[in-house]
């Protein structure tokens, strides 16, 4: 295949899902205006949610979800052994995601509450990087399809991809979105990695930090800002712990 005179081979990819909502996989089938072109540069070897063809000769494995059961531990190791490149797709795979909130509770008690006297196997939630080497982490809840496309373009053309180092705030300014703090809401935009195009503040919701900390985040200034604006410690830590992307704040 060639584009602009540059030869490239299609990417042999597989998509696998673990503990999660499968919303990030769904993004791969979204952004319909460019979907046909996107699918043409990919050779889908294994993608259970959309295809009954299940091969194991893939080069790139996209992993959605976190790890929370022993069969998942086995499965991720098998996939790692087969894949040349392993990509964590979305906040669950990168950080554990909202699933990780479970770890704050007693799991035997949680099991009793949901399943009564017939408990089901469950382990504390771990991100993929805690089990196997991860070559690339694409954060987001869900991932931004535009960013995924951008990364795929870079891979095809052999150009290293650089995630933005700036926080979400910058993208709100670019979109002329009025700061959520001005609406009296808490927002993690000042400390969260940009690249999502800030859809949440634009839609009327302060950032929840699904992409994890920005490279140049100024935490000290952020904590003094939320304190000055009167947000409680409980509120700040509920938000920062939500996707498991920030270290627990005491």
């Amino acid at each position, binding site marked *: 295949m060639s584009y602009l005179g540059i030869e490239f081979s299609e990417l042999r990819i597989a998509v696998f*899902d*673990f*503990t*999660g*909502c*499968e*919303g*990030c*996989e*769904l*993004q791969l*089938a*979204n952004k*319909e*205006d460019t*979907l*046909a072109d996107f*699918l*043409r540069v990919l050779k*889908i070897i294994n*993608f*259970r*949610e*959309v*295809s*009954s*063809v*299940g091969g194991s000769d893939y080069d790139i494995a996209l992993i959605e979800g976190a790890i*929370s*059961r022993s069969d*998942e531990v086995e499965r991720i190791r098998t996939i790692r052994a087969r894949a040349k490149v392993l990509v964590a797709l979305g906040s669950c795979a990168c950080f554990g*995601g*909202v*699933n990780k*909130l*479970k770890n704050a*509770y007693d799991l035997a008690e*949680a*099991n009793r*509450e*949901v*399943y*009564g*006297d*017939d408990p*089901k196997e*469950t382990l504390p939630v771990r991100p993929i990087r805690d089990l196997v080497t991860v070559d690339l982490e694409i954060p987001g*809840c*869900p991932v931004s399809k535009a960013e995924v496309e951008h990364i795929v373009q870079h891979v095809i053309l052999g150009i290293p991809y650089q995630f933005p180092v700036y926080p979400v705030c910058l993208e709100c300014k670019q979109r002329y979105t009025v700061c959520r703090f001005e609406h009296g809401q808490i927002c993690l935009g000042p400390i969260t990695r940009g690249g999502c195009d800030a*859809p*949440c503040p*634009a*839609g*009327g*919701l302060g950032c*929840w930090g699904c992409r994890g900390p920005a490279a140049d985040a100024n935490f000290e200034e952020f904590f003094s800002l939320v304190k000055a604006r009167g947000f409680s410690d409980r*509120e700040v830590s*509920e938000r920062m712990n*939500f996707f498991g992307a920030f270290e627990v704040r005491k």
Partner: protein
Amino acid sequence: MKIDLNVDVHHLTRVEGHGNIRIVIKDGEVKEARWDVVETPRFFEVMLKGKHYSTAGILTARICGICSIGHCLASLRATEDAMGVIIPEAAARLRLLAKHGETLQSHWLHLFFLAAPDFLGLPSALPLLETNPEVVHLAQQLKGLGNRICDVAAGRATHPVSLQVGGVARMPARERLLALRDDLQRSLEYIGKTADLLRTFRIPVFERETEFVALKGETEYPWIGGRLVSTDGVERAENAYREMTNEYVVKDNTTKWCRLSRPSFAVGALARYNNNHRLLHPDAARAAADFGLVSVCHNPFMNNVAQLVECIHVTHDSIRLIDELVADEKAPTMVDVTPRAGEGVGAVEVPRGILYHHYEYDENGYVVRANCVIPTTQNNANIHLDLPALAKQFAVEGMTDEQLTLLCSMLVRSYDPCISCSVH
């Protein structure tokens, strides 16, 4: 003639989540027929405990990547019920528009990408990119429009941002709504072509009598809130949902099962149709008649047709909602919320059937207890009980393991199960 057949599907493809099918037929007799859900449990009900009321909808949207708007809406309704919040009329319209966008997105995803390949003799929709680009074009147009409606009404299609306790954060710009209206009008032609495609599908002839549960429409085909009804004549208030679902834990499954008047019941597009078909838009009713869909229909494979019928209805209803929204674009979309202790239930018809969220709050607005009953949880026992009947009917001379495997897989896919959701 000895008929021995085996079906062993580990992690069924083209469904959301992980489930297994196993059938054993010996000497023409069904020895075993099972549907087992093996998805990893996530314990959302436990994670909700101690969370602020404004967090509940954002958290529970993450139960499902396909029907996150539905989960968010059921959550908001439960919270608003607990705190005595009445949302503005414009907010109710915007929420329903978002809901319609999700129904379109989800139904088209199912019909084109998950179900259609079986009827076309393909392992997935991907080969159509080369062989039938016009079909891919239809899918792109229709599913894309569903997602755009969600983007405009809810701020984002997957994991919405504008749907909040008290209403909807903002009224979309008039021009964005009107652009959607044009696209909806134009999409009716694409839907017509899709119906032509569906008409070429050979839908298996199979019936197993069961009970169908849905919201009860009074004056409109129901989507958000209201009384609960079944085709066996059971009727309950929204907050008596437990009497309608009767969830119980089953061995070897991480999902629960449900029952009502019989050992199982079904929810989803076909259940909504069977209970509320009189309230459909005339064009949708005409399409149903055209496909021979008649209430009460007991063929689960007809859920595919019911989804198409609902897409027609929802497209017309979205146009109506946009007209009402632009006629009063300065209308408020949010009310103030004062947290208070209380209990509330929200029932919403999401693409795969009726969904319930139930919360108890303390006086500061933090969750004390939560319960969510998912559509696929309600369908799992019905799927499980369909399988022996299907196996029995098709265990005939000439049937092969491969053919029976395909039929059983198609049956499960017809329910459009959302398995991760059902385990949550």
